[in-house]
């Protein structure tokens, strides 16, 4: 029996919009599922079904309203991401959990090389090695050397997204959260990005990913979780060709 890296129990997210007269919007409710170590769990569902919110809750960008997100890091004590200290989340984000958001908020006046290098330095890698690995990853994602010192705020959407992906993939995190990583990429970039994700999967990294393209989803996912109107409709094993 494969061991579990993430266990979600009864997770719900509701937004209470005080400025709109305390209007409550439910993103999703009562989600329960597990992620096995080394597994790729794909999330599919229509727009507005709560997919992004679910990922954001795991990453703690959203505060879960109810439920538990138990994370079992390798050789460490399990921790409930929904309830642990902010400081612990910061630490996990640096070292163990990678995240590719749907829209990349480009930090102004920081070069893309610096952004990627910095994530490695925060992980504890020494400066020179971090720079080398960062350069490598950027090149692999087809960001040319001449753009290394440029600011992503000046890049195209696709380039920005690739920088975003670079900072997540370079980390070799234990857990990877992907929110439509290939949405704004052209075909070539998409193939390359997916190739990198596959490489990580082979290294045993556990992933939860939302993919815009159902076909892509079916290529990678070991299992697929389907969300409909904020509730889990089904989770099924995916029959892959490779």
């Amino acid at each position, binding site marked *: 029996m494969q061991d579990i890296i993430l266990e979600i129990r009864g997770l719900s997210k509701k937004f209470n919009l005080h*400025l709109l007269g305390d209007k409550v919007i439910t993103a999703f409710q009562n989600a329960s599922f597990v992620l096995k170590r080394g597994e790729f769990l794909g999330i599919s569902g229509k727009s507005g079904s709560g997919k992004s919110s679910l990922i954001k809750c795991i990453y703690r*960008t959203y505060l879960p309203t109810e439920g538990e997100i138990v994370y079992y890091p390798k050789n460490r004590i399990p921790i409930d991401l929904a309830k642990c200290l902010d400081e612990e989340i910061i630490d996990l984000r640096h070292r163990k959990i990678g995240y590719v958001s749907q829209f990349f908020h480009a930090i102004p006046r920081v070069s893309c090389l610096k952004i990627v290098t910095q994530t490695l330095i925060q992980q504890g890698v020494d400066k020179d090695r971090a720079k080398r690995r960062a350069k490598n990853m950027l090149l692999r994602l087809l960001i040319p050397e001449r753009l290394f010192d440029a600011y992503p705020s000046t890049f195209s959407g696709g380039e920005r997204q690739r920088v975003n992906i670079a900072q997540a993939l370079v980390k070799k995190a234990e857990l990877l959260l992907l929110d439509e990583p290939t949405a704004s990429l052209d075909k070539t970039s998409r193939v390359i990005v997916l190739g990198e994700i596959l490489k990580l999967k082979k290294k045993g990294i556990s992933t939860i990913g939302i993919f815009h393209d159902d076909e892509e989803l079916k290529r990678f996912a070991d299992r697929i979780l389907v969300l409909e109107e904020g509730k889990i409709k089904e989770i099924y094993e995916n029959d892959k060709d490779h």
Partner: protein
Amino acid sequence: MRDWILKVENLTKIYGDGCPNCLKSETNKCSFCRATIAVNSVSLTLYGGEILGIMGESGSGKSTLVRNLYFDIPPTLGEAYLNKERRNIFELNSQEKRKLRNFNMGMVYQSPYLGLNFEITAGGNVAEKLLMANWRSYSNIRRRLIDLFEKTELPLNRMDDFSATLSGGMQQRIQIAKALANNPEILFLDEPTSGLDLSVQARLLDLIKKIQQELKISIILVSHDLGVIRLLAGRVLVMREGRIIESGLTDQILEDPQHPYTQLLVNSML
């Protein structure tokens, strides 16, 4: 996980006589005794190497809070512990407090008039901290000044100019150089970029980020500007009427604010 550097418990500052009802007051004015509760039972932890943002509007008590911690203003109640110091730092004698202030802490005030002596040179302001730490070799002092000026991107040829002759952005950078002079563990930044031009502000904030990454110093950053907080802070405390009404990761506070006031603030971003 990183160790904590500073732990604050129930810090309170009351201006006026105060009464047993003050702490229960909902606003920062006690309806029973008319005292002002500038800081009301604030507790926080600062971890090593992080930037903790304190966000609030005017009158929220955020500046008073850091000035309590820097020993500028004595608190009414509460305790604070510095990692190395087992005792409540507010109970130390004035010599011990001064020692902490000189060696373990640095402060950048909103107004350079609070943090700098305008009757001496820019270098003199920074040298004051070194001289307090018993540096007695003129050439060593000059060398360290050059090092600090370079770190804070201050032009070396202005080192011997009077502080009043430098621009606002430079004056803030002198404050930063001064604050870093004795390699403190904690840096307090009280609205360091208020009133500065946009490009000057950007440069200063980038400098702060760079310094923090290089020196791994722990910073408490007070600001009313959510943009500044977003750029620099990993965690945020939101203050209102002297209390902390919400705390969380910066991205969570900005994308999923819980408290009505926080939602109002986030919604008010330009």
